[in-house]
């Protein structure tokens, strides 16, 4: 029927790589969560909290996140354009280069090569590598879409194109620096201006790595798994354009009450509130899609991953704008509330959706069924419980920190010293580790299930029909 072959091996390679880097990132996450209440687990020079935390964030955002995005996007793009990748050999090279880059990135962060820009810590030689990786990806995605055999571009392709463009702009601008040796550079931006550039980047890299690509997956895999069409095409159009337009105004809500000019903060807060609308456009679209037949939640094991995922996306996109308000920011900014917020997004929305995508793809390209739906269900409940324990304990301890930092005696003097307040966090930090352990066990069930599915299937069989 088809005179071409989908390059399933590259897709498979990226998925396996992203799971590998995910394990590394999650294990280091557990380690630093214990360091928070047991400082004796710091082993200088390479394994102190200050170095490991950036390996954790970069490993998961770039290793697990981008690795999964590359693999799943290649899978989606080929199917929505009804043709193989324009440059399949380049995609294979892309896979090898990706793994080399992530390995070198991890080593460089252990060595303390760090630009001190959050989520852009990698030093300039690695930045060049990341840009090359992204250009290779962009060439293949754009080329394949331009030479597509299906005239209409489906919603997922819009989000994919927006992701490719936005990440390139964000990454290149924020990493502009003056090298001072092979392992050190200084940003071209200084002081207040560098803060504004960094959080324009920092907020939007979350938007265009952990929101738009995941929405591309959601819009593709929700109809695929449920067999239900997306509720409203018009709503998806409005949500898409207003999301990518409004996102870029909002970075300065990370800098509320800093010396950044007030007008930039206020403008960012206003657009942040507006951002609830397009975010919920996708949430509503997802709910109403499944509203046609809620029994899918019982009959199709992947529906609940996607629906819980979009639910956490919905909660995240209300909580985020709330945090941007000055009255809320003054209480919770700089506290553990913020990691609680971030992890509801990453552990709730992102990994739920990515896991559902991988559960869908692996049996397809291995020409088999999932090894065990029962194990997938166990995985689901464990990561859900683990993530809730993590987020809720961090919200409690974050509010506690914020309130105690502000607590005063009757005469107006401060009630507690900093270290007295820190000591009150320990039970919560220990609870957070427990949540992390439960989440990790859930992820191990996921990996076992994927591995066993691969074992019973065959990747090379009849590749043209997958």
């Amino acid at each position, binding site marked *: 029927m088809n005179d071409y072959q989908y390059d399933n091996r590259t897709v498979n390679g990226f998925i396996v790589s992203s799971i590998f880097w995910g394990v590394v990132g999650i294990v280091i996450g557990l380690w630093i969560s214990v360091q928070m209440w047991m400082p004796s687990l710091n082993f200088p020079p390479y394994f102190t909290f200050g170095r490991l935390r950036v390996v954790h964030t970069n490993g998961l955002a770039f290793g697990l996140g981008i690795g999964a995005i590359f693999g799943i996007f290649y899978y989606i793009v080929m199917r929505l354009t009804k043709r193989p990748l324009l440059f399949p050999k380049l995609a294979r090279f892309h896979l090898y280069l990706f793994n080399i880059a992530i390995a070198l990135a991890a080593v460089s962060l252990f060595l303390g090569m760090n630009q001190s820009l959050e989520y852009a810590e990698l030093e300039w030689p690695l930045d060049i590598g990341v840009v090359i990786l992204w250009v290779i990806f962009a060439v293949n995605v754009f080329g394949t879409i331009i030479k597509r055999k299906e005239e209409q571009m489906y919603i997922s392709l819009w989000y994919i194109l927006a992701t490719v463009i936005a990440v390139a702009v964000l990454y290149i601008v924020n990493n502009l620096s003056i090298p001072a040796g092979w392992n050190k550079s200084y940003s071209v931006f200084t002081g207040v201006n560098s803060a504004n*550039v960094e959080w324009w980047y920092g907020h939007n890299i979350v938007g265009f790595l952990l929101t738009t690509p995941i929405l591309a997956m959601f819009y593709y895999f929700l109809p695929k798994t449920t067999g239900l069409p997306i509720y409203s095409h018009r709503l998806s159009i409005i949500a898409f354009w207003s999301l990518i337009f409004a996102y870029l105004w909002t970075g300065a809500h990370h800098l509320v009450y800093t010396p950044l000019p007030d007008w930039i903060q206020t403008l960012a807060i206003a657009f942040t509130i507006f951002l609830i609308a397009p975010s919920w456009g996708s949430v509503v679209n997802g709910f109403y899609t499944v509203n046609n037949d809620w029994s899918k939640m019982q009959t199709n094991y992947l529906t609940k991953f996607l629906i819980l995922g979009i639910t956490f996306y919905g909660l995240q996109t209300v909580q985020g704008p709330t945090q941007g308000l000055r009255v809320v920011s003054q209480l919770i900014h700089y506290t553990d509330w913020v*990691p609680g917020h971030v992890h509801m997004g990453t552990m709730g929305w992102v990994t739920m959706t990515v896991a559902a995508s991988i559960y869908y793809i692996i049996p397809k390209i291995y020409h088999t069924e999932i090894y065990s739906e029962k194990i997938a269900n166990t995985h689901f409940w464990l990561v859900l419980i683990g993530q809730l324990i993590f987020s809720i304990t961090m919200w409690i301890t974050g509010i506690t920190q914020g309130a105690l930092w502000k607590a005063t005696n009757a005469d107006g003097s*401060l009630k507690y010293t900093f270290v007295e307040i820190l000591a009150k966090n320990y039970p919560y930090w220990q609870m957070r580790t427990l949540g992390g352990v439960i989440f990790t066990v859930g992820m191990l069930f996921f990996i076992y299930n994927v591995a066993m599915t691969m074992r019973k299937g065959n990747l090379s069989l009849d590749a043209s029909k997958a």
Partner: protein
Amino acid sequence: MSGELYKKPILFSIAATVAILVGTAVTMFYPMMTDEMHPKLANLKPYTALQLAGKDIYQREGCNNCHTQTVRPLKTEVMRYGEYSKAGEFAYDRPFLWGSKRTGPDLARIGGKYPDAWHEIHFENPQAMYAESNMPAYGWIKTNKLDPADIEAHMKANEFPYTPEELAILKTKTEMDALVAYMQVIGTAVTKVQ
């Protein structure tokens, strides 16, 4: 809305790029062109070679993962840390080191707050000073010598003035000396005014 746009990937990509660049231009590119984003306090001095070496170590060890360097203009914050941060204090920081999380206290007014010896003892064993602290120990940097050639390259990249004597002295200093020197200069451009 026309369905044609979703059949033309190049036109679509141009439209998406424009959508993304509007907010970028207004909130990021435009302010960068104005003076309000490049203020400098009269008292602010470029870092000395030893201080810059200390700041490099601060960045290498990821201290900004747990310590902020910006005091918000809130009553209890000013009471706890000191004068709130001014935009003109950071003109020599490439990039800014304000941080985003206070696992440890803010450091924007740490300069001059304690003697050098306090910092050395604290870095070596934070728990000896505060039993309930969770800060990692940094005694190991005492045995690391500074490399004047490296630091000279860093001074040049920042365009900071320095003398050959200043660089020569670095050979006798350790990373601990540098980090303490950096601690002692943070935020002092403001406190000197008062």
